[in-house]
């Protein structure tokens, strides 16, 4: 078995409002696979996503302990360069949130704040990212239009493209298709299937069908606990834990 990309040990998180979002979660995320984190809402999946690239810093947190490592990097470390971390671990949110800039600027934003100034280089990277996100052919002649002017499905792929432009190692997707139509959803899923050879992918699916379709590895979260973590197939066909069985068979959630 390959070395895990991200190692999570005993991760505990409580928000200022007293809610315990994660109650001692341990999980290894493998590279070049799609890891699906699923379960009923409030289970801690989104909090996990926020912790991994330290967007959790923007929330009011009461207590956070445990260990999260990516290679030699201690993700939760006090001195960790979070800006650098967020370039290595990109995130796509549940709704498309284009910045109020042009299409081009949305993709180049991350590169520019990282210090890239060369216009030619920027153009290359933007085009490359848009192609990778299967969006280039649809919008190559409108790069200077406001990002809000394209369709919702295109916007979400734009959000994906601006993450890809940074050449991240890990991509976190938090219910990325929940606001999309089936066609756009399929495009995102197709992308993920081909992209997994280059990236480590953690997907919070927006329903169980998607979970079953996409999962190489699957992690079932329930009320802040990781109940079961196994291969995608065994999870949905032959879950071991009783609670997983009940959820997968649709008895609750």
């Amino acid at each position, binding site marked *: 078995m390959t070395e895990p990309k991200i190692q999570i040990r005993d991760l505990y998180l409580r928000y200022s409002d007293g809610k315990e979002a994660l109650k001692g979660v341990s999980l290894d995320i493998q590279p070049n696979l799609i890891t699906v984190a699923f379960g009923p809402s409030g289970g801690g999946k989104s909090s996990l996503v926020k912790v991994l690239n330290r967007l959790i810093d923007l929330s009011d947190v009461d207590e956070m302990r445990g260990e999260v490592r990516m290679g030699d990097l201690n993700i939760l470390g006090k001195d960790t360069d979070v800006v650098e971390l967020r370039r290595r671990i990109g995130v796509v949110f549940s709704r498309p949130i284009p910045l109020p800039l042009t299409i081009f600027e949305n993709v180049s934003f991350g590169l520019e*704040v990282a210090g890239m100034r060369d216009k030619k280089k920027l153009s290359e990277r933007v085009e490359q990212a848009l192609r990778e996100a299967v969006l280039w052919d649809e919008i190559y002649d409108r790069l200077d239009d406001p990002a809000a002017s394209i369709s919702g499905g295109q916007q979400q792929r734009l959000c994906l493209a601006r993450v890809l432009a940074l050449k991240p190692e890990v991509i976190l997707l938090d219910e990325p298709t929940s606001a999309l139509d089936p066609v756009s959803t399929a495009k995102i899923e197709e992308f993920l299937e081909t992209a997994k050879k280059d990236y480590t992918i953690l997907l919070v699916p927006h329903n169980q069908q998607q979970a079953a379709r996409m999962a190489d590895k699957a992690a079932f979260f329930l009320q802040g606990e990781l109940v079961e973590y196994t291969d995608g197939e065994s999870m949905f066909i032959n879950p071991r834990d009783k609670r997983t069985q009940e959820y997968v068979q649709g008895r609750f959630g």
Partner: protein
Amino acid sequence: MRRYPEPKESRFGITRQQSQKIGFSFIRLISLITVLPILGIIVYIIVKGGSHISWEFLTSMPSDGMRAGGILPAIVGTFYLMAGTALFSIPLGIAAGIYLSEYAQDSYWTRFIRVAIISLGGVPSVVYGLFGLGLFVLFCNFGISILSASLTLSIMTLPVIISTTEEALRSVPYRFRVVGVSLGGTQWQTITRVILPQALPGILTGIILGLERAVGETAPILFTGATFYLPHLPSSPLDATMALPYHIYVISTQVPGMSSGVQYGTVLVLMVFVLGMNLIASLIRSRARAKRQW
């Protein structure tokens, strides 16, 4: 307007519908009384002052003890004061607005700042004048000068700029900040590249309204920078200056035998200044609203 079924019972011999009619007419009358004098004043000033406005009036020095000639030094002085006020109050006001909107936690210190801003906003203009006299003119030894007056007006303008900046920034959705940071931007990069441009129209509106107020004020510059009469234009920030509002005060109360043409002409020029700024501010506001993407 909504329509509702009409109950028939009555009180004091009139139906409720009749009482509503009377009430509405009364409120309409009140609004009319409020608004008409303003429109009347504006029309009156335009009519009485318009005929006196000429290129010469705007660009020549006063003569005959200010009873004739132009008002150039007052116009120039007002520009200088506005520029000086803008120079100090805009950077400080915007920075403070950014702090309150983007960085400040809900702490006692922050509340203290808010109380201070509210208090600054309520200090009477003549008290600003006293303060400017005490601090800038005497203590800092800037003398009665454009510098002292601009600094005084800046502090008076500050609360307006701070609050409008804060409000404009807060109206930009929080999610853009999260996205900016998630793409590896620092907080400051996200603010300057994404949030601030979106808030700019609101901030500009606030700046213009703040400066509009500063331009029209007399009391704060009475003892800090304004002078009765200046035979030449001010040449340094340490010179005293004439200014439109103070000039109006002087020629309407201190100079006997004043020609009413000069008076109304000067008032009209100040009104054009002020209402022009008001107009620009509302144009910016409505254009920004139409262009907004969120």
